[in-house]
């Protein structure tokens, strides 16, 4: 864990540099044919969505490890991943409607992918609420919730291809022209580095909190 923590400042600096350059790259990227300027939210919206899904998977897998082996490290990672899923999910759910308002004319539409993304986000908010207000033993219960949250992620991804609706399908990213793909790749990499750094920092915080709690309990005994 300490070796990972030593890398965090470097990763954060690299991510910062990439984020500083990103707006210039986005500005230079070509316009999409129908939507004009507003489409460029895509370069932040989609990487944020990818990080949300990644975080949901990390939380789910860590939850499985915690349910099976009761290893505390798994629990720490699960909590950190759930929090980051909520944060990045919030970015997706805010940038999405901004884009939608201009592109589709409505702030929100109850169609497959939007609904399922909102639902998935709410599951991880519920995870955090359970841990905060559930009292003793809620770490194991929350692990079960995290597992269910992860199980829903494939539905979110697959749903848009099954129910063809307003939201662009999953073919968009694969079929980007090279000038757009390079900008998208840059932003995706920046988000990934930021995510990994935040995850490491949050896990370290959680480890410290648990150690403090153990110390309190030891003093009480």
């Amino acid at each position, binding site marked *: 864990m300490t070796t990972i923590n030593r890398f965090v400042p470097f990763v954060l600096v690299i991510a910062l540099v990439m984020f500083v350059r990103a707006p210039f790259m986005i500005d230079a990227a070509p316009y999409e044919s129908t939507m004009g300027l507003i489409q460029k939210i895509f370069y932040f919206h989609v990487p944020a969505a990818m990080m949300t899904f990644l975080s949901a998977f990390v939380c789910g897998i860590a939850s499985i490890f915690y*349910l*099976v082996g009761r290893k505390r490290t798994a629990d720490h990672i699960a909590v950190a991943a759930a929090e980051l899923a909520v944060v990045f999910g919030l970015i997706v759910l805010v940038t999405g409607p901004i884009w939608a308002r201009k592109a589709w004319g409505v702030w929100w539409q109850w169609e497959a992918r939007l*609904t*399922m993304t909102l*639902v*998935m986000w*709410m*599951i991880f908010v*519920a995870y955090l*609420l*359970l841990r905060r*207000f*559930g*009292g*003793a*033993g*809620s770490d*194991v*219960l929350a*692990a*079960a*919730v995290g*597992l*269910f*949250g992860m*199980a*829903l992620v494939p*539905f979110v991804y697959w749903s848009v291809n099954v129910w063809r609706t307003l939201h662009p399908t999953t073919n968009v990213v694969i079929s980007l022209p090279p000038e757009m793909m390079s900008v998208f790749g840059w932003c995706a990499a920046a988000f990934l580095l930021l995510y990994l750094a935040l995850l490491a920092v949050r896990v370290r915080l959680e480890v410290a909190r648990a150690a403090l709690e153990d110390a309190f309990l030891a003093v009480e005994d």
Partner: protein
Amino acid sequence: MSVLAAAWLIAKKDLVVEARSRELAYTTVFFAFACMLVFAFSFVRDGRALEGVPAGILWVTVTFSGTLALSRAFERERQGETLRALLLAPIERAAVYVGKLLGLILLMTGVEVIIVPVIGLLFDAPIGRAPWLLAGLLATGTIGLAAVGTLFAAMLVRAHSRDVLLPVLLYPIAVPVVIAGVLGTAAIFAAEPNLAVARSWLAMLVFFDAVFITLSLWTFGPVMSE
């Protein structure tokens, strides 16, 4: 003792207790009526329900009364401190889960048998149009809700703030089931019914049920071993 035999014993125990007092049955049915009443006043214009609304009212009523029945069924276990006894019994953990699930499904089926004709009556919904399909949708939807609900209600029995945490945890995860149920039922009730669409939603519900029951069975053991 096999898992199913033990599960049936547990379910029978719940049914016998319920048959003696009929507390859950009466109160859940009347709660469902009260729910329907509130929605009637919200969605009725000029004495008739808005287009497509009866399907939604049916499923919201099922969801809310199911949640209530869940939390009160496990409250009974908590008060008698019988949940620990169940977990100590020499049966598989899965049997406890399946037993409670069966009991809840039977209770909810009883409630729905009463509610569906009432909704058909009050909101002029064509419940007789495709009765087996409607029954299938309700059955699979109820099983899906009950599968996740039983797991979470059992998990939360000893938790703090359990009354509000059960809906907070259950509803987001049960949303796919509710969506499939409502859209399938609406396809049956529509002015131009589309039974093929309803059947595809039924297939989706069967799939959700399989996933949810498998996940719940798998998680029940580790979660309840405290």
